[in-house]
Every structure is written in C-alpha cells, then in structure tokens.
C-alpha cells in the first residue's frame, strides 16, 4: 500500500469489523456529493490503477447478468455517484444494471425493495445497509432465491451477504484523520470531533479508534475535549460548530468524519474570525470542499472515490454470480480497471486507502 499521499502511511492495517461509510453514514440523505453523473475520474490508489489494466479481463464473467443496486436511499448524491460507478462496471460486463430504492433511508423500506428485487430474479443485489440486522432476513430470503448479495459502504451481519466492499478500514480512516490534524496543529492543543448522528455506527467506530490513536505517545500533545453531533444536517452542524468554538475558546482543531459536517463547519469557519486559526479536517468530497481549500479555511481532508466503490461492488457481484468466487477468504477476482482484488477475512474486500485532498491536488477530482 503505497498510497498516493502522505496520509496512507499507516493504512492497510487491521481486519475490517463491519463498518459503514463516512459519507453515507447519514439517514438524512444529504451526504457527499457530485454535480451529477458518475466520475470515472482519477483513481485514488496508485497500485490499483497500476495492476488493473492488464488483469481485468471480463472474459471470466457471464454476460447478461442482472445486477441491481439498492442504496440506503435513492436521490442521495453520494449513492448516485457510487451507483454510477456500478453502472459503468455493469456496462463493461454487458449486464443489465438497475438502481432502485426507497426515498427515505430506513431499513424497513429497504426490506420491501429487497423483496421486490428477489422477486424480479436479479442475479446480484448490491446494497448499502441502513441497519446491519434489520435487512438480514430479507437478504437471506433473496439469497435462497438465487441472488448473490454484495454489500458496499455499509455492511450487514456477515452471514447475510456474500461479500462486503469496504471503502476503507476504520483504522485506516481514524489514522488518516488523526495524522492530518496532528500535522496541521503541530501535534499540540485541544481538538474536538463533529460527528453525524449519535447513533451512526460507523462514525462511532471511527471515533473510538481515533480516541485510541490519541492515547498513543506520539499524539499525547493533543487532547480531545468533546464529540458534538450535527445529525448530518447542515444547519445543525453549522450551529454545533459555533457551539464548539464558544464552549472551548482555546480549541485548536476540529475533525469532522462526515461530509455534511465538514462542509458546514468549513462554511462557518470561513465566515468567522476563527478562519485559519482553528484547523478543520476530516472526510469530505472535493466538490464541496474545493472553495474552502482554496480560500485557506481548510488545509487538507480525505475521502475515497465513491464511484470506485460501486464499480468494485459490481465486479464482485458479477464474480459471485459467475461462480468465479464464493466469498471465501483468499479468493481473488479481477475488477476491471481496478485490477485484481482478494477477499479478506469475513468476506471483506477493501477498496483501498483514502485519498488526501489538498490545494495541490484537489482540482484533479471532480466528485
């Protein structure tokens, strides 16, 4: 793992516990963004694009596979991009692509869509779970009806799916974020975290890991004063940022591992006297953050490319449906331009280390 940027130095560690997305951790639907369309775009991991070109023959795959994408919520821009990646992959595989899903990000509505898809005889259902357990029963039924289940972005209990495409390991994300913050404030001072909803499982997993990171000797200068929750609502996040700065006058930095939160916090900072004095980093999308990186409010932040996530999910599903893999640890499959991927423990496939965006590279990314 020689990541494209300084951040990924400590990446690639730790087996993945079921984890969700940063960006999509929301139930409210306003997540990461792109101004429409998918972005084949610049790939993040250099090694991915490297090994991809040759190996990725689609010859091993059946054609005409019916592959359906069921995001947490349709109309969520983050998933629109991710599923767009899936669409591109399905086109390469000469399959039939479909995206469907509820307009509210709830597990119960997802269940009814899973049932519909299994009725319709889809070969692959790629889904991002609104609840790790609630959709399990429906997925198992779909499985027994012959569909292969791939989860992406947010996992279910491992027994309910064949493969999980993990955008990043929680440890990797936590490490990147602490590293960025440490670099920005010189490793010393009070910091706060601005999270999404208090019950976002993945957010909490990352926060726990970040807390563990902060206990390490090299980070002893930094002190986490509080975790605030912006509910993945722009306005609330905005208010919470304001509240943080009032409550802790000597705050040096804020980490926001959610795209809604970081954008709101950046907007607050850029219009306040704290601009440039209080550092902000976390997970965000280039499109949303471009202006704040350019005006100096934010030095750097990280994320993966959601389009690649969907792309990889489609290939994994096709591989399962073609019988190339069964989801066991150690099996590998070719994933088009992403090259060959190997399944890790618990059927988890890792997309790659997150990309760190800075003023120097942000213009290369359009999502």
């Amino acid at each position: 793992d020689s990541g494209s940027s300084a951040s990924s130095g400590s990446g690639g560690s730790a087996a993945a516990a079921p984890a969700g997305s940063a960006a999509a951790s929301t139930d409210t639907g306003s997540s990461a963004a792109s101004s429409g369309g998918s972005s084949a775009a610049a790939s993040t991991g250099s090694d991915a694009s490297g090994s991809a070109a040759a190996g990725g023959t689609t010859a091993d795959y059946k054609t005409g596979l019916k592959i359906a994408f069921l995001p947490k919520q349709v109309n969520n821009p983050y998933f629109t991009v991710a599923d767009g990646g899936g669409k591109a992959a399905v086109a390469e595989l000469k399959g039939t692509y479909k995206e469907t899903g509820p307009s509210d990000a709830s597990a119960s509505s997802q269940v009814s869509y899973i049932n519909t898809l299994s009725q319709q005889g889809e070969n692959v259902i790629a889904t991002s779970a609104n609840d790790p357990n609630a959709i399990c029963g429906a997925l198992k039924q779909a499985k027994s009806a012959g569909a292969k289940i791939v989860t992406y972005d947010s996992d279910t209990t491992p027994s309910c799916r064949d493969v999980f495409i993990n955008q990043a390991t929680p440890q990797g994300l936590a490490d990147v974020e602490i590293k960025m913050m440490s670099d920005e404030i010189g490793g010393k001072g009070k910091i706060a975290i601005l999270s999404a909803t208090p019950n976002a499982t993945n957010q909490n997993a990352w926060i726990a890991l970040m807390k563990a990171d902060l206990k390490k000797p090299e980070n002893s200068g930094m002190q986490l004063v509080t975790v605030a929750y912006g509910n993945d609502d722009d306005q609330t996040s905005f208010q919470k940022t304001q509240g943080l700065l009032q409550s802790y006058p000597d705050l040096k930095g804020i980490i926001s591992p959610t795209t809604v939160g970081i954008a709101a916090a950046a907007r607050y900072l850029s219009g306040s006297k704290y601009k440039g004095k209080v550092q902000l980093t976390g997970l965000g999308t280039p499109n949303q953050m471009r202006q704040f990186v350019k005006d100096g409010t934010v030095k750097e932040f990280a994320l993966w490319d959601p389009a690649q996530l969907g792309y990889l999910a489609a290939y994994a599903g096709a591989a399962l449906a073609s019988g190339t893999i069964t989801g066991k640890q150690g099996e590998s499959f070719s994933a088009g331009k992403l090259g060959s991927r190997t399944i890790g423990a618990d059927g988890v496939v890792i997309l790659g280390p997150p990309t760190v965006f800075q003023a120097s590279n942000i213009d290369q990314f359009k999502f």
Partner: protein
Amino acid sequence: MAPDRTGTLRRSLLTWDVAVVVVLAVVIAVASGSVDSFASQRNWGFLLLDLVPIALIALPMTLVVITGEIDLSVASTLGLVSAAAGKMWADTTLPLTLIVVLCVLLGALLGAVNGVFVTRFGLPSLAVTIGTLALYRGLAFVVLGDRAVADFPTGWTDGAVGFLPGTRIPWVVLPLLALVLVFALVLHATPVGRALYAMGNSTDAATFAGIDVARTKMWLYVVIGAVSGVAGVFWTFRYASARADNGNGLELQVVAGVLLGGVSIFGGRGGLLGVVAGVLLLGTLRNALQLDNVSADALTVVTGGLLIVSVLLPNAAAWLRSTTAQRSRRAGANPVTPASSANPA
C-alpha cells in the same frame, strides 16, 4: 315513496367504502395481468408482512378519527416502545415475554398521556400529538441512544415473519384479521361504536344522549397507544432490530390509509371496510409500481395524489348531485303544494 327508496339504495351503493374496494379490485386485477410476479403467493406474503404495522395501527386510528380527533404520535410511540424493548433486553435480565407485556403497557401509558391532554385539559389533539410525536421520538433516543439492539432470540425474530404451514402467507395475518373483526364489530355493531359516530358528528348531542365523551376518548387513546405498542414489538422482532428511529414517519402512512378509506378528518363518517381497503390499496399500488420499476419519487407523488383525490372526489360527487338536483328542481317548476296543510287544520 318508491323514488326515495331507490335514492337511498343508490346512495348506499355509491359509498366511498365500496368505491375503494372496487378500485382495489381493479388495481389487483390490472397488476396481476401486467406486472410480473405480482400475483405470486410469495409477493403477497411480502406485501402483507409490510402492511401489518400500518394496518394494525390504522384500526384504532379509524376509531379515533371517527370521533373527530387524531393521533400523530403513533409512530413515535412505536419507536419508543421498540427502544424500550431493546433497552430492557440488552440491559436487564427480564424474560422476553415479560418485556413484551411491559412494552404493550408502555404503549397504553403513552396513549393515556395523549388522552389526558386531550380530554382532561381540552387541548386540540392535532397540537397535542404533534408535541408527543417529537417528545416520544426524543425519549426513544434518550432511552436507547445510538444503539441498535439486535441479539434477540431467533425463535422470536424468525417467528415474527413465519408463514402459515404450507403457504407463503405470514401467520401474523391471522391475529390481524381477528383484530380487524373485533374492531369492525366494535365500530359497527356495538353500542360503543354508535356512540363513536354520535360524538364525532356532534359532541353536544352525544353528551345529551348520556355518552361520556371524555371517558370514551380517553379509552380510545389508551387503546391506540397499546396497539402502537404491539406494532412496536412486532416491528422489533420482524426487523430483528430495536432502534430509536424505528417506524419513523409511519404516522403519515397510517393517516393516509385511514383517510383514503373514506373516514372524514372532521369525524363522524367512514367505516372499517373502507379503511382496510384503503390500507391495502396504498400497499398494493406501491408494491405493484415497485415491481414495475417505478421510482420511489413517483410513488411519493402517487401517495400524495391519492390522498388529495380521496377528499376531492366525494366532494365533487356531492357538488354534482346538488347541482343536478337544483337543475331538476328549477326545471320541474317546483309545484308549490301546501304540503303541511295535510295536518289537521
């Protein structure tokens, strides 16, 4: 008085209940013919399972709306009950059966709180239950926070979605049907039901007829709370997940089903047949359109449109009737016979 008799006959044939049933039948027929795998037993199993909580709460909701009140807090009650179930299961050693009983009692208690505000303090139920909608959902988060409790025994969670032997029809449909029957009997064939219609039309007249309006409404709120509690328990096991946000927004679907079923939001009018048909209609339409790959956005528009039509149509019908009646009266030159001189002079 033959013409009048046929008039009443026509009126009773053209009631909204019947219209909804007819529309439902048409939707089912069309969907069976044109949507793949709609008519399969499997699909009906899924469809019914999804409708259980809505149908369940719609039953007492019908009674509440017929008395001229409303309860928007049902989904939050469901959520709070679910959260409480998770909390008790995760953090105490209570047996699950006891937890279920406590949960239903909790639902009844939450309903009673609404009832006290509405009947004791005389506050408008719309405002009260908007308040408790926020309050109960908030408390659900206070109780369970960010957690999702999922480790319920599989006997219970699988049991909740089990089928009748030899079919793909969920067994919970049976108790639901029994409840439909109970509520239909109560509403249409008991003294209590008569009282509900009376108080929905005129609180005064009901009071003068010896009906204890406040107490009846109080009990209705307790019942709708308890039923929401049952729905909360079912939800928890069906999705094998106790979460504070369970059932979010369900109240609108329940209210939509009830109104579509021909129950007047002003009270006093409507029946259970219509409501059951209304809930089924919303459900089948959604299911059929979903199977037909219609997007969620269009489904949202359809739901809203149906609601609007459900209040517009009877109105348009009444308007049509009155204008035609007026025209025929004008045309008939209104022969002024001293009708009441039939009385002894």
